[in-house]
């Protein structure tokens, strides 16, 4: 079980290898990537920032919750911060379990909780030169 805020590109294959164990028959993965448009605006890139220390602690707590809820023993979550381009991976959640139901449910749980609880923010940069903080479903234009 490992959770981290990272500053470099995320490598899904490395994370899949990290949770591999001969007792596991199912590995589920979620990757969040930067989309080219959001609510009708053309996105050039996203600047992610975090309250690093607390985000790490919160993500570890979320992984521990999946241990209780779904008996998960092999899971990793990485969230990248910094400036990301279209297609770059912002978050990767990988869970391996003996049977498929637990890994599928745990990935979904972790993704939802990280999005809802981890102190991480995104500043979208648009193709037209404007930018906006994204938060809780609303966007606050700043220029």
């Amino acid at each position, binding site marked *: 079980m490992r959770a981290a805020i990272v500053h470099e590109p995320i490598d899904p294959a490395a994370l899949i290898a990290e949770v591999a164990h001969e007792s596991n028959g199912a590995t589920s993965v979620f990757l969040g990537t930067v989309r080219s448009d959001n609510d009708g605006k053309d996105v050039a890139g996203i600047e992610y920032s975090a309250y690093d220390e607390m*985000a790490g602690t919160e993500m570890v707590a979320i992984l521990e919750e999946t241990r209780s809820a779904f008996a998960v023993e092999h899971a990793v979550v990485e969230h990248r911060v910094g400036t990301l381009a279209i297609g770059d991976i912002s978050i990767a959640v990988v869970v391996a379990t003996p049977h498929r139901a637990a890994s599928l449910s745990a990935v979904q749980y972790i993704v939802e909780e990280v999005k809802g609880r981890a102190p991480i923010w995104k500043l979208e940069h648009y193709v037209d030169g404007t930018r906006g903080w994204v*938060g809780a479903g609303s966007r606050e234009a700043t220029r």
Partner: protein
Amino acid sequence: MTVTVRLFASYAERLGHSSLSIELPAGSRVEDAVTSLRNMPGGSMLPPTPLVAINRGYASPDSVLSEGDELAVIPPVAGG
């Protein structure tokens, strides 16, 4: 007492700081610190009861602060 305030994202941008120290009377609560921040330049954009964390754990407006605490004022999160 002195409390370290951490600000992030749009809050840091508007108040012009990502970290600052504020002086508060002993026994002050989170809501007192927020009032103090809202009186600073740019501070009016902070909601009256923002999401906060004390020493990296979520806390409530009436949580009591102690000398040396790290109080984080947290904008709506948007990870993922």
